């Protein structure tokens, strides 16, 4: 019998307490040295504004090797600077270095004055105007769309409604088939009284949504993360990166009520998109109208948007040139992980460059399956979502 354990445990705890005290004092000193938590630092220029929306054009300091511009469309939930969270792990900077011409939409922070803003306004209004503006500025009839998470759903809907304006469609960790119960959000939303929520809040607060996200992994996200933070609190560089992620997680705009109402009811609860029954304004969305090349990226350990919600898109579109890319990580790892920088961003760039001509794929064998044009593209079935095992504190 290990008879000294209890005494040692207490002794260790006392030692830990001492270490924690020291770290807290030193950490507080480090914390006071930060004037601000800088995020989204890649140089960019504001080119368009409409209500709360702002459209930015990133400054390309090198040669543009992919002539078709890319419009990045982020989700309404949280902020688009996730793609440029820290300078050394930035999808934006990575794509700029690969010669792309990038635009990004900042949806802004809705206030009560935006409570009636609908899905129709976001897609047939704001997104449509941004696409037209990028087309006009670039002199191209068609542009590339890159949609992230909910922004990916928006881009797929847009591409189905306006296929003549989209050259290539990329979707990253975006939900399309909402019938799945693999993700907790999908399970929980089935029993949510959406009308009561929207009618009560008008603008559903970001904090309300954050409470739901924190519940996905309550012990990790509310407790372990901050205990673990003490391990990096003395290292200014690591602490800054922790704080950047922390800032992003809790930088959550409220959600315009009418848009959220339709998104939750028509998609999460009634799965109308894959059924071909979704109406946006006066237009019905038919995913078969998506005939342009499609790159659909999912993360195998995504607990927010599980692969089962993402992968079905490829079977629903009319495209013949379509690829699935399996990212070995979680929802956020797609943007800030080391693999994201070393593998995913270069793969996206390669896929776009290959399709930057007049419709034909360059450097591609004619009878090669579209999926094979990506080194990492796969149609393998991912392992089931395990729930807790192996989840890390910084994932959302």
């Amino acid at each position: 019998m290990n008879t000294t354990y209890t005494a040692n445990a207490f002794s260790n705890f006392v030692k830990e307490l001492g270490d924690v005290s020291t770290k807290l004092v030193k950490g507080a000193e480090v914390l006071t040295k930060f004037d601000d938590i800088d995020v989204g630092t890649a140089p960019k220029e504001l080119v368009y504004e409409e209500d709360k929306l702002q459209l930015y054009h990133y400054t390309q300091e090198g040669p543009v090797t992919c002539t078709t511009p890319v419009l990045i469309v982020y989700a309404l939930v949280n902020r688009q600077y996730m793609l440029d969270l820290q300078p050394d792990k930035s999808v934006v900077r990575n794509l700029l270095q690969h010669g792309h011409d990038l635009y990004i939409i900042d949806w802004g922070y809705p206030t009560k004055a935006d409570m009636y803003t609908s899905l129709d306004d976001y897609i047939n209004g704001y997104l449509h105007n941004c696409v037209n503006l990028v087309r006009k500025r670039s002199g191209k009839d068609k542009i590339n769309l890159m949609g992230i998470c909910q922004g990916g759903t928006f881009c797929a809907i847009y591409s189905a409604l306006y296929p003549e304006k989209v050259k290539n469609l990329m979707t990253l960790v975006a939900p399309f088939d909402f019938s799945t119960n693999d993700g907790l959000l999908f399970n929980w939303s089935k029993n949510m009284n959406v009308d009561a929520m929207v009618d009560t809040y008008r603008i559903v607060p970001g904090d309300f949504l954050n409470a739901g996200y924190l519940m996905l992994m309550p012990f990790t996200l509310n407790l372990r993360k901050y205990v673990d933070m003490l391990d990096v609190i003395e290292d200014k560089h690591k602490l800054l990166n922790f704080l950047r992620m922390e800032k992003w997680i809790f930088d959550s705009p409220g959600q315009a009520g009418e848009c959220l109402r339709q998104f939750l009811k028509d998609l999460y609860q009634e799965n109308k998109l894959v059924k071909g029954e979704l109406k946006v304004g006066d237009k019905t969305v038919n995913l078969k109208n998506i005939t342009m090349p499609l790159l659909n990226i999912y993360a195998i350990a995504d607990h927010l948007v599980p692969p089962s919600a993402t992968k079905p898109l490829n079977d629903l579109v009319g495209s013949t040139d379509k690829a699935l890319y399996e990212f070995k990580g979680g929802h956020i790892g797609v943007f800030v992980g080391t693999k994201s920088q070393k593998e995913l961003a270069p793969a996206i760039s390669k896929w776009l460059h290959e399709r930057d001509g007049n419709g034909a794929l360059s450097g591609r064998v004619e009878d090669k399956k579209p999926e094979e044009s990506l080194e990492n593209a796969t149609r393998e079935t991912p392992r089931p979502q395990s729930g807790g095992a192996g989840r890390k504190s910084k994932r959302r």
Partner: protein
Amino acid sequence: MENTRQFFDGWLQSQGRILEGIMDMTRKYQESFRFPGAAGGVMPPLGGFPDGYASWLSAIQKALLGTGAGDSDLVRETLSKTLSSSNAYQMLYEMWNPLFKAIQEKTFSPDSYMDMIDPKKYKEALDRVFGFDPEIVSQGAMQASKLFEALTGSAQEFMKPWVEASMKNVKTIPLLMEGKPNAYMQAYNNLFNAFDSTFGRVFHVPPVGKDREKVKMLLGSFDDLSVYLAKYTEYQHTMYVTGLAALEKVIASVTEKCNKGEDPKCFDEFFDLWVDVSEDTYYHLFQSAAFSKLQGELLEAALNVRGHNFKLMELYLYDYPIALRSEMDDLYKTVYDLKKRLKSLEGQPGEVAA
């Protein structure tokens, strides 16, 4: 040390030495964070480890978050989250220590662990994780209590369900004494049913008179509140029962490790095990259709209370020269429609001038 008594004596002595050490260390820390209000600028003497920890936490919080270097929001926000987490970490330690001692002394059995833990501490730890706010429930209960007082005089005939509920609850006392969570839930349900079939009925009485609309809304808000409190209690109960199930799994896992001679070498190892097992146990709860339904019902009940409150506020504020919520909604709708019409007339807006 093969002998249990020897082990226990040794453990007590080592604990005593450690306590002396921590007292000394705590005093030194406190000297670094002087309290202006205390005699001599130093904290008063401490009693025992938990007091020492609480004082340490308080000293750190006051020193870092109160004035001086810790004034910025960034420091305050970051450290408050960290301190809150470390507090839950310490609660878990206090709860865990006697359990491990029992495992070591081989006096532990899976059925007896409930006698050894302090459910209050575990509840506090879970409260911190889930962000439960007992204050809200207390406020609701106080409002209901005031209502009871107001109604008691005219509600003599309503006593029968309360007597029946009390009789049922007497039978649950042995289980309550054992700290069985389901017994608490049963007792609560008995009382709530008594409430619902007596005072609760008052909330549905059709009001009359000039202010009937206000009275109806007020009674409705009490009804919503009671529904919310009942649902909230059911929700919390589900959480705690799941937490206790997780704890059982943790204990089974630690016992197995101890038997294999692979016992955790430090508290952090136990903490990681607790987090992983709890996370998985809760994940299975969260994934269930029953939880999704319960959560949906809780949300709806909370929204009903909130919505009712807004309507009441409008009624009370109607005579004041301020824009009401519904009036602002109309205004927003008008602005929205006008903007949309303007956009359709203007066409594609132009670029921002460089």
